[in-house]
């Protein structure tokens, strides 16, 4: 088994009176793409937000590179090398594309080579470089959000449903982008409901239900086992062909 970059053990998270995460155990191996699957309301987004410190875990541990970050503040978690791409095209709409990316470049300047690499799979960003990000289309906004997370090398990128509401053509571009990212040995934890989108990308997979991880294994194993898909996700691969 490869070295773990992130490990959640018995994580509970309450939001107000609601007990959302009810003992999440999750292992994210270093250098791979782990997919977090599950139906709506299973606790996937809350898991990402708990890792990021946006919701405080009420119990359990979140270990990143062996250090428990469950009680660490969000900015310190980001400084430790974790980037977060929230769902719903989370960009700063009043700022330009350049300014959005600049915010994530904590050294105060952006590496030209890395920018060219990003423009390679998100060419629209170059075209709209000095445009207000709020004026872009949904797909372009999602590109800005992802580009912001990778404008500097990160140890771990948390991405929440990047294909939600996007056209198939844009999703294809997204797949190419994630393949590029994977090639750089970046560790990614990807929340997604579109199984067809992630089955060619994921190395490992965890399935959540009712605030717990109910299955963890390799993506190859889940892709091949239709009974398991039916049991865990209530779908068959055929339905997504």
């Amino acid at each position: 088994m490869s070295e773990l970059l992130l490990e959640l053990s018995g994580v509970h998270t309450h939001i107000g009176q609601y007990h959302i995460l009810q003992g999440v155990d999750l292992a994210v191996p270093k250098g791979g793409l782990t997919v977090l699957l599950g139906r709506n309301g299973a606790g996937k987004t809350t898991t990402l937000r708990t890792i990021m410190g946006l919701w405080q875990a009420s119990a359990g541990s979140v270990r990143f590179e062996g250090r428990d970050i469950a009680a660490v503040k969000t900015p310190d978690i980001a400084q430790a090398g974790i980037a977060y791409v929230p769902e719903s095209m989370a960009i700063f709409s009043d700022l330009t594309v350049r300014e959005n990316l600049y915010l994530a470049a904590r050294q105060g300047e952006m590496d030209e080579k890395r920018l060219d690499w990003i423009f390679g799979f998100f060419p629209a960003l170059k075209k709209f470089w000095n445009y207000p990000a709020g004026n872009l289309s949904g797909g372009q906004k999602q590109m800005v959000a992802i580009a912001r997370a990778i404008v500097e090398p990160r140890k771990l990128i948390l991405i929440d449903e990047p294909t939600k509401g996007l056209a198939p053509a844009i999703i294809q571009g997204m797949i190419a982008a994630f393949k590029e990212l994977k090639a750089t040995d970046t560790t990614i934890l990807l929340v997604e409901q579109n199984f067809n989108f992630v089955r060619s990308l994921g190395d490992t997979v965890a399935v959540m239900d009712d605030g717990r991880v109910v299955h963890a294994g390799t993506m190859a194993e889940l892709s091949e086992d239709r009974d398991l898909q039916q049991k865990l996700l209530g779908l068959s691969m055929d339905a997504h062909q």
Partner: protein
Amino acid sequence: MLKSILSGDFPRSRILSIMLVLTFIGLAVAPFMLSGARPLNTAATICIFIVLVASYDLLLGYTGIVSFAHTMFYGIGAYGVGLALDAMGPSWWAVFTGLASALALALVLALMIGLFSLRVRAIFYAMITLAVASAFAILASQLSDFTGGEDGKTFKVPEILSPGFKLIEAEIFGRSIDGKLLTYYLVFTACLLLFLFMLRVVNSPFGRVLQAIRENDFRAEALGYRTVVYRTLANCLAALIAALAGALMALWLRYVGPKTFLSFEVMTDILLIVVIGGMGTLYGAVVGAALFIFAQNYLQSLMAEASEALAGVPILAQAVHPDRWMLWLGILFVLSVYFFPTGIVGKLRNRK
């Protein structure tokens, strides 16, 4: 050159550019174009309110902080200089001592308010600032031996700034070069530099982080920015600039008093100007302050003339009677907010 001066933040509207250029020229040549104390007083007030409102826009428009303590910082600057000049006599040493003390007090208070209350929800922060500002205004009124109470204090300014001082005997463009003129240009230059400084701040990486916080503080935190620190810094910066504006106003008026510097009326004026000019656009402070202060000073006179002209018309003559100038000012605000929901600058920039 111009790009560097404006920190790359151009007006982005032809009409707005014309309005800004006209305002700049108007304020720059006001002492030579207008005779009498009132027009010059209006011009100086516009200069100072541009800075005061722009500094408030750093909070409200750029960082999304609603504060009611801005007049308190304005008052601290004014009282610092005024009381120092009153106690130490009319010298530059007194001005700098008063200013330094005022800035230090403003910084400490802004830091304390920021660190204690910027962690809480916006509405609680607004309430806390309102409470602190009210307490400070009451304190200024109650400590009458020290502050002059409700009447305030008049004081002498350094000789070069006093109206009786003449730099040269000869007149230039029909205007004597006296202390009042020098004070005006001190105010004008200081305000111009402070405004350009604020333009630099909002267009710096720091300014971008403030805008990101305004838009979504969770996202800004997820990028590694400590939002409380940035909000507190913005609060301190705005407080220091408001204190400087207050000091300039005190030098101009040679008077400090609670109604002029600490009243809630001044706070509502600032809020109205920010909204009318356009939040999150420093140029909005220029346009808003110029229109508002001008209306405040001249609407009554204009209405008096209109009332005279309409003397024979029964209802109209009464409607535009100068005593009703506040009513018409209110109607103008309502109309401007209705027709310019993003402020005048926002509307002009979004024109196709």
